[in-house]
């Protein structure tokens, strides 16, 4: 009996000391090993930059970010989320690149009554049937970016399309997204094994044989670079025009430039953000990121930077008292912070209602490959699943 009490007391003491180590603790789950670590590191750098810009404080209290590595696997992501929720007892878990990792982890956070802020993943389920008041996104719902691309394809007069993407939650959402808005004919589609398949020779041959005018692809991370190379090696430029989402980014461009794959210059993609967007927050973010890390930030970094600032706006509103969850939620739902994409609002499912832009790959004044905005495709676009979300009824 004495022993049990002793252990309990020790446990309490440990818990107490843990919660006093820093005033505001935030868990951040991203990918820090495997080749996808390059995305996770970009986000980690942006999170650290955001904390630095806040002088390490929210509402006058010190901030500690606990980074965890999901190893690019749903089951590990869930384990790390459980650890953050139970052991570290953080009030907010953020991050998540991959839709399948987010879907595996979300329940642990919601069941514990904590907040989950997605810096990237936006699976349809979490926007619709599985929506939760404690969820916020600083990215997008998966369907939105390809929907914007479908619109662009219509405007360009593209009549037929072939779809290609990886076989997991996000890949399916991306295809559904472009199919929602594209008015021409879908000549065929392929879902490839994820994440192990990196050779798309068979799929490219099929796409070419289908007689489609253009190909739409979604290949995030290293698969994106591989796809672009094979597309160029197959000599499909001019024959099967390339339109992509989340495939060409600030992480793949320097590598493609080093390998002199000039075919990617001029290719077009849709996104809610671009380094050239003209607002104060974005200028400060892009210039200080480039100064500190000597490279362009990717959209992953931009969304991670926004995540910390969204949290800061909520923490400021409750004066640093994280037990006031209702006030914290209400404050964050206003999206009242200087987002690098410009002002946006939240829908009932806490997915952003925001603009989507058409971007083009160009060389900047110093010859570095980057992107610029061509035009606005959607203004204040609402994701298509909000109607299925019980919170919206």
């Amino acid at each position, binding site marked *: 009996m004495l022993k049990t009490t002793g252990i309990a007391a020790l446990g309490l003491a440990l818990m107490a000391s843990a919660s006093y180590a820093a005033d505001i603790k935030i868990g951040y789950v991203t990918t820090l090993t495997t080749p996808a670590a390059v995305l996770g590191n970009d986000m980690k750098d942006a999170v650290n930059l955001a904390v630095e810009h806040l002088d390490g404080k929210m509402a006058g209290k010190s901030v500690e970010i606990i980074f965890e590595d999901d190893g690019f696997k749903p089951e590990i992501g869930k384990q790390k989320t459980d650890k953050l929720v139970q052991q570290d007892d953080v009030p907010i878990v953020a991050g998540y690149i991959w839709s399948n990792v987010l879907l595996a982890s979300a329940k642990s956070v919601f069941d514990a009554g904590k907040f989950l802020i997605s810096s990237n993943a936006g699976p349809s389920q979490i926007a619709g049937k599985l929506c939760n008041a404690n969820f916020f996104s600083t990215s997008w719902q998966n369907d939105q970016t390809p929907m914007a691309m479908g619109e662009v394809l219509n405007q360009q007069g593209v009549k037929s399309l072939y779809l290609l993407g990886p076989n997991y939650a996000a890949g399916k959402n991306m295809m559904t997204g472009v199919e929602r808005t594209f008015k021409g004919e879908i000549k065929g589609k392929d*879902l490839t094994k994820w994440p192990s398949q990196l050779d798309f*020779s*068979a799929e490219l041959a099929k796409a070419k044989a289908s007689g489609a005018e253009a190909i739409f692809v979604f290949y995030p991370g290293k698969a994106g670079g591989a796809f672009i190379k094979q597309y160029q090696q197959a000599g499909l430029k001019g024959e099967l025009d390339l339109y992509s989402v989340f495939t060409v980014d600030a992480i793949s461009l320097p590598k493609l430039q080093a390998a002199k794959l000039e075919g990617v210059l001029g290719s077009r993609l849709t996104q809610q953000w671009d380094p050239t967007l003209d607002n104060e927050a974005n200028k400060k973010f892009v210039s200080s990121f480039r100064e500190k890390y000597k490279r362009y930030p990717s959209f992953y970094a931009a969304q991670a930077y926004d995540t910390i600032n969204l949290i800061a706006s909520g923490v400021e509103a409750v004066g640093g008292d994280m037990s006031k969850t209702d006030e914290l939620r209400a404050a964050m739902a206003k999206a009242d912070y200087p987002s690098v994409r410009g002002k946006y609002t939240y829908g009932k499912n806490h997915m952003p209602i925001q603009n989507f832009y058409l971007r083009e790959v160009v060389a900047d004044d110093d010859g570095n490959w980057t992107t610029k905005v061509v035009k606005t495709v959607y203004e204040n676009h609402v994701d298509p699943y909000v109607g299925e979300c019980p919170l919206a009824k």
Partner: protein
Amino acid sequence: MSTLFFIQFLNGLQLGVLLFLLAAGLTLVFGIMDFVNLAHGSLYMVGAFFCATLTFWTGSFVWAVLLAIPLTALVGLALEMGVIRHLYQRDHLDHVLATFGFILIADTLVHLIWGPEGIAIPLPEYLQGQVQILPGVIFPTFRLVIISCGLLVAFGLYWLIGRTRLGMLIRAGASNRTMVSALGIDIKTLFTAVFALGAVLAGLAGMLIAPITEATIGMGNDIIITAFVVIIVGGIGSMKGAFIGALIIGLIDTLGRSFLDDILKIFIPVNAAETAGPAISSMLIYLIMAGVLAFRPQGLFPPKVR
């Protein structure tokens, strides 16, 4: 349709010869030394990274490959003499544990040296383009280079194993190891040479695929599983089995990815076919393996008598 089939056949052949390069080393090491080398895929990755760095240093992909081959052989030698040699007497579980550990070490070392982002290898202009093989059949030049390299190596190995003294020892070792050493052959040196040969073949495969997919951490871990499928289908320890097995697996995988959903659409509704197609085609090679294990567990072309 027939041109598409021909192109997909070439794509399958390209995957097949690549798998052969990996499976050849795996089957040699497994068949002769009775050693399970999970880290074979790490040598594939190491070859790719050496080649990537050397391409940027020398400015030429071809020079990079020529220099990276002896470097990969050195890594193979060091690995065999430093670690593997001491494990031959242990059982398979110890092999698996040790080489699995080596995979983790290799992945972390590559992460430390080259960073997590991977390297895209630039190809020279004359390899970057496409060639017209037949009217309407246009194929990337570099993939043809891979096919030719693979077939050349296959021929070289056929000659080495069938026509040379070293090959005779290798064959003898695969059939009856104890007898070979009883006859006074320096089995230790033979094992080291065979391991280094396997390392070079795996490294070469990595060098050939890297300009297509990039040199990335863990690139070997995905393909090594397929290479194991190849040697199980072909018959462990048999070079002929590795070659034919690799071509079978390469073709089935590629043709499955290309035509399975269209074939399924004949029998089941389009939506169901689109869901089932990718799922079944990614399982296809394992179904083949299961079939071989059930009806011919020694593989299609097992080495003769033990």
